[in-house]
C-alpha cells in the first residue's frame, strides 16, 4: 500500500496516462504499417502522431519514475527505472516496468537514427514493440492496486482489447497480402479479361 503524498498520486496518474499513450502508439504503428488513415486527417498525421505520442509517452514515464522515486513512503532507487529488478519494493512488477522502458528507449533511439541503420536491423528491433507493450501492461496491472478494480481496470482492459484487435487485424491483413512473386501474375489475370473494369485498387 503506497503512501498518499502528491508524488505518489502523480506517479500513479502519469502511469495510467502512459499506458493509454503506449496503447495509442502501438495501434497507430500498426495503422502506419498498413497504410490506414484516421478519418478527416491527412496521411502524414498517422505517422506523425505515432512518433510524437511515443515521445510524449517517454516523457510521461520519466515523470512517472521520478515521482515514484521522490516519494519517501517506499524506497525506490532511481536506477530501478532502467535497471530491472533493482528495487526492493515490488521487485518483480517494477522490474517489468524497467524492462518495458528499456525496450521503449531502444525503439525510439533506433528510430531517431534509422537513416543510418540497416533497414532489416531497424525493422527487427522495432518488432520488439510487440514485446514492450505486454510487459508494460503486466507492470501496470501487477504493480498498482488501482488498476485491479473499478473503472481503471475497465480502462486497462479496454487498452488490452484495442491492442488485441489491432494485432489480429494486422495478422489478417498480412495473410491476405500476396507474396511478391505472385503479385504480377495476379494483376495480369485481373486485367486480362476483355471487359475488365477500369484500373482498380492497386496491388502493393
Amino acid at each position: 500500500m503506497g503512501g498518499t503524498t502528491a508524488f505518489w498520486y502523480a506517479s500513479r496518474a502519469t502511469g495510467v496516462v502512459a499506458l493509454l499513450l503506449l496503447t495509442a502508439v502501438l495501434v497507430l504503428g500498426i495503422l502506419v504499417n498498413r497504410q490506414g488513415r484516421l478519418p478527416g486527417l491527412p496521411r502524414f498525421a498517422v505517422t506523425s502522431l505515432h512518433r510524437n505520442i511515443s515521445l510524449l509517452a517517454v516523457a510521461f514515464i520519466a515523470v512517472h519514475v521520478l515521482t515514484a522515486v521522490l516519494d519517501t513512503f517506499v524506497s525506490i532507487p532511481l536506477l530501478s527505472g532502467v535497471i530491472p529488478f533493482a528495487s526492493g519494493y515490488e521487485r518483480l512488477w517494477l522490474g517489468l516496468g524497467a524492462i518495458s522502458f528499456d525496450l521503449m528507449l531502444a525503439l525510439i533511439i533506433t528510430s531517431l537514427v534509422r537513416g543510418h541503420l540497416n533497414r532489416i536491423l531497424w525493422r527487427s528491433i522495432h518488432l520488439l514493440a510487440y514485446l514492450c507493450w505486454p510487459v508494460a501492461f503486466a507492470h501496470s496491472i501487477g504493480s498498482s492496486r488501482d488498476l485491479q478494480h473499478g473503472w481503471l481496470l475497465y480502462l486497462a482492459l479496454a487498452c488490452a482489447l484495442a491492442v488485441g484487435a489491432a494485432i489480429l487485424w494486422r495478422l489478417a491483413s498480412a495473410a491476405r497480402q500476396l507474396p511478391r512473386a505472385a503479385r504480377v501474375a495476379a494483376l495480369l489475370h485481373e486485367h486480362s479479361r476483355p471487359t475488365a473494369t477500369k484500373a482498380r485498387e492497386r496491388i502493393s
Partner: protein
Amino acid sequence: MMTMAPVNQRVNETANGTANETADEPANRTAGAPAQQQRPGLPRLLPLVPGVPEDLRAHLARYGRPPYQGGRGHLIQAAEQAGLTGRGGAAFPAHRKLAIVARGRGRKVIVANGAESEPASHKDAVLLRAAPNLVLDGLQLAAEAIGASEAYLYVHPGVSAEITRALGQRAAAGLDLVSVTIAEAPPRFLAGQESALVNRLGGGPAVPTFVPPRVTERGLGGAPTLVQNVETLAHLALIARYGPRWFRALGTRNEPGSMLATLHSKVGSQVVEAEIGVPLRTLIPLEGAQAVLIGGYHGTWLPAGLIGTLTLDNAALKGHGAAVGAGVIAALPADRCGLVEAAWVVRYLAAESAGQCGPCLNGLPRMAAALAELAGRGHRRQVRADLERWSGLVTGRGACNHPDGTARFVRSTLTTFAPEIALHARGQCSAINHGAIGSRGAASYQPFLPLPDGVPMTEEDWV
C-alpha cells in the same frame, strides 16, 4: 483470349546448333548473310567452319594460349584504344567498367554473363557452344587485368555440361589463373540484369536491387564486381592477342569491331557475325517485311521502308529512336499481325516484371491488356491515350530498365503500326483473317516472335 503456346520450334533448334539449322551456317536462302560471313576478317568470334564448335585443341591451334601480361592495366588500355563497347545491350565502354573495378580495394569478383534472357536473342548461347574457350580466355584475361580472385560464369541451364567439360580441359592444360564457378540463371527476362545477377549469385532471387551503389563498387558480397557479357569477353580475348588496331580494322570509327546478331525473318532464325555499320539489308531479307524490330523486346519497331536505308550502328539508328542493343533484328513478314505479336510480347514482359516497384507492377499488366485490346477487333477510344500515359508513367520509375524498355517497345508499336491500329478499330486486319485470332497455339496463326511458356508465380521461379 490469347494464351501462350510452345515457342516456335525452329528457333529453338537454331540455338541448339543442330545440323540442319546450325546457327551460324550462312544459309544460301538468306541472301545477305553469306556475304557478311565471307567478308575478309570475318568471322572473328564464330568458328572458321560454320557449325563446327572449336574444341580446346582447335582453339589453341587457331589462337594460341591466352596472352597473360603478368600485371594489371595493359588490357584495359588496349580495350580503351580498341573502343570496345559492351555487347550485352547497353553498349557501355568496356574499358571504363574494367577500370572502375580495377581501382577497387580488396577482394574483386568477375562474372561472365551468358544469361541472355531475351527470348529473341541466341547469340550468347551460340557463342558459348561454338567458341567457349574464347569466352573463357577473355574471362581469365579480364580477371588478371582487374585483379579478380573469384570468377563466375552465369548461364541458363542447358549450357553447363559443355562448359564444365571445357573448363576441365583447360585446367588439365594449366590455362586458367582463376578457377571458374558455373552458376545457373533462372529462365527469367531479368535474370541477366546486372544487379539481379549479383543478387542471384549471392543466394537470393534474380531480381534487381536499387542502385546506387553500382555493382562495380559494391557487388557480390560487397566486393567490386565486374559483370561482362560473354561476347564482350570474347572480343577482349582477341584484342589481347591482336591489338586495338586489328580490332578497329572492321566497323565504324565510333563503333569499331564486329558483333553477333540474331536475325529473324520469314526464312527462319540464325545468328551471324557482322561488321558494325553494314547496311541492314545485307544481313536480312527485307522483301515483303512490313516492319523490323531492332534491339529485341526492349527495342524499337521501324517501318520496313525506312530500314532499307539503315546500317547496323547506333549512330545511324539513334536518329530513329532505335539502338542496336543485343543485336536482335526481326523482320516481320507481311502475313503476320504486328499488333498481335506486340501484344504477346508485352504480356510476356509484364509477366516478367519482378513486381517490386509500384509503377512497373501496376503499369505493365495494364499496358499488356490495353495492347491486347488494340490487337483485337475494335477497341475503346481511350485505349491509345491510356497506353501513352502509362508508357510515360512507368519510364524511369523502376529500380531497373524493365519498365523503360517495355514502354519503348509499346510506343514504337503505336507509332509504326498506327495504320494497323486504325484497321483493327474497324474490325479488319491487314495480315490475317481477323476472326482467326485466338490462342497463340491456334493452327490458323503461326507466331513469329519467339516467346517461352508460362508465367512466373512463386519465389522458386526466380531462383
